[in-house]
């Protein structure tokens, strides 16, 4: 039976969480973490579970207080019309900036490794054309496409992990040899990526079984962190501390696989995974940015904004980094702070505190009456 156009299932939300975090991080995160934590990078990856669970918990708690409002509508209910709209709008800007980074990342591997002669703009236009189509089609199409491509992504990750076992000959010892400080610092970048789970706040009001929100969020975060940890362990065990020297360590791990005549050149799978991962992530971030904007400005339909916002997003992607190395530095050092210090934790935490204080004071006891929905 077809699901109504503005409702998504628990499995679809789980899929969105996994692909939004894993979609691009699987290729670049090992290098970023090893830079700080060395051979203990896998411990940093495990620690990211706490970042994800905490951010997710904040958003789900807010959702339970305001079950019909999305993440950009909730601030308006808590802080009042204008301040709330400003906070909601800032979330849209965050989604847009993150989306442009994902687009730039998508182009980075392709122009660096596979199509070095092709101008970046060609790749960006190709990506944006598909994203415009999917965003105009609505949330259900985004969620279904995501689920289909996620299966491919996870399958490919596991094939590469299993096929790499033969090349894993570097011991991951000593454990915490340089103390816990580098491990904690190393967990910041992947932690900020896992905390992207807050984006689930944009789709929770359309979830069919709202009572399962916390379970879905937690299982999505834990599953993603386990896969991310396995990827980090394999990268470390194959490339050792040299992992940090590679821009795309997993790609180099895949290139080393040569089991027999059939099991070689698995780096092609990385291309497929990368294109699929970037596409689903880009489509979703773009979708929530455009829907968020239409909700902040209380528009009856988000579709007229899709193409102009795609032009803006593509333009921002083009100017965001001069080359893949610059982008890697930005993603490993700047974006994590930008996301973690404002949007992923402090802002939801502040909103939750104010909402709880207001409830206790008796000012906002009633659950929110139907939030305006302009999701297609």
């Amino acid at each position, binding site marked *: 039976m077809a699901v109504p156009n503005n409702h998504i299932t628990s499995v679809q939300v789980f899929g969105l969480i996994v692909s939004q975090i894993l979609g691009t991080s699987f290729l670049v995160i090992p290098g970023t973490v090893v830079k*700080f934590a060395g051979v203990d990078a896998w411990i940093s990856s495990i620690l990211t579970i706490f970042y994800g669970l905490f951010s997710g918990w904040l958003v789900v708690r807010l959702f339970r207080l305001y079950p019909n409002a999305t993440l950009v509508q909730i601030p308006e209910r808590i802080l009042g019309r204008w301040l709330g709209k400003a906070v909601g709008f800032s979330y849209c800007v965050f989604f847009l*900036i993150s989306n*442009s*980074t994902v687009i730039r990342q998508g182009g980075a591997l392709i122009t660096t490794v596979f199509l070095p002669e092709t101008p970046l703009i060609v790749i960006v236009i190709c990506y944006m054309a598909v994203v415009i189509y999917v965003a105009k089609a609505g949330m259900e199409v985004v969620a279904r496409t995501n689920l289909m491509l996620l299966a491919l992504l996870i399958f490919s990750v596991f094939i590469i992990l299993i096929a790499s076992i033969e090349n894993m000959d570097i011991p991951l010892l000593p454990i915490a040899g340089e103390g816990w*400080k*580098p491990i904690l*610092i190393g967990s*910041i970048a992947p932690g900020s990526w896992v905390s992207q789970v807050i984006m689930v706040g944009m789709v929770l009001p359309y979830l069919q079984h709202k009572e399962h929100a916390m379970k879905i969020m937690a299982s999505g975060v834990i599953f993603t962190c386990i896969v991310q940890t396995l990827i980090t362990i394999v990268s470390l065990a194959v490339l050792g501390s040299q992992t940090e020297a590679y821009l795309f360590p997993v790609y180099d791990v895949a290139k080393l696989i040569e089991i027999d005549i059939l099991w070689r050149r698995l780096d092609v799978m990385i291309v497929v995974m990368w294109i699929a991962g970037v596409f689903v992530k880009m489509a979703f971030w773009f979708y929530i940015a455009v829907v968020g*904007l*239409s909700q902040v*400005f*209380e*528009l*009856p*339909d988000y*579709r*007229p*904004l899709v*193409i*102009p*916002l795609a*032009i*803006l997003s593509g*333009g*921002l992607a*083009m*100017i*965001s*980094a001069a080359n893949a190395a610059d982008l890697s530095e*930005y993603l490993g*050092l*700047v*974006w994590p*702070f*930008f996301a973690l210090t404002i949007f992923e934790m402090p802002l939801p935490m502040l909103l939750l505190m104010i909402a709880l204080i207001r409830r206790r004071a008796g000012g906002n006891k009633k659950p929110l009456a139907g939030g305006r929905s302009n999701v297609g």
Partner: protein
Amino acid sequence: MWVKLMVWIVLIIAVFLYERTQIKKLPAHARSRVWFVYWVIQIAALWPMTVLIFELKITSHTQFLENIYQPLVSLLKKK
């Protein structure tokens, strides 16, 4: 440069003409608000597009964020 500029102008006009037909289908009271947001986005797009077309060396949004978070980044780099 001029070719890029022409392509962009044609794109803006094409998008405008297409979206005009879409926005006409919306309820009358909401059209002005949709047009407002539409033009705000188009004006915001002027910045990256101008940088791209004229190949200007202006601080991008990523460099702006990099400058803001510089103290924290240098702290991290020191480990």
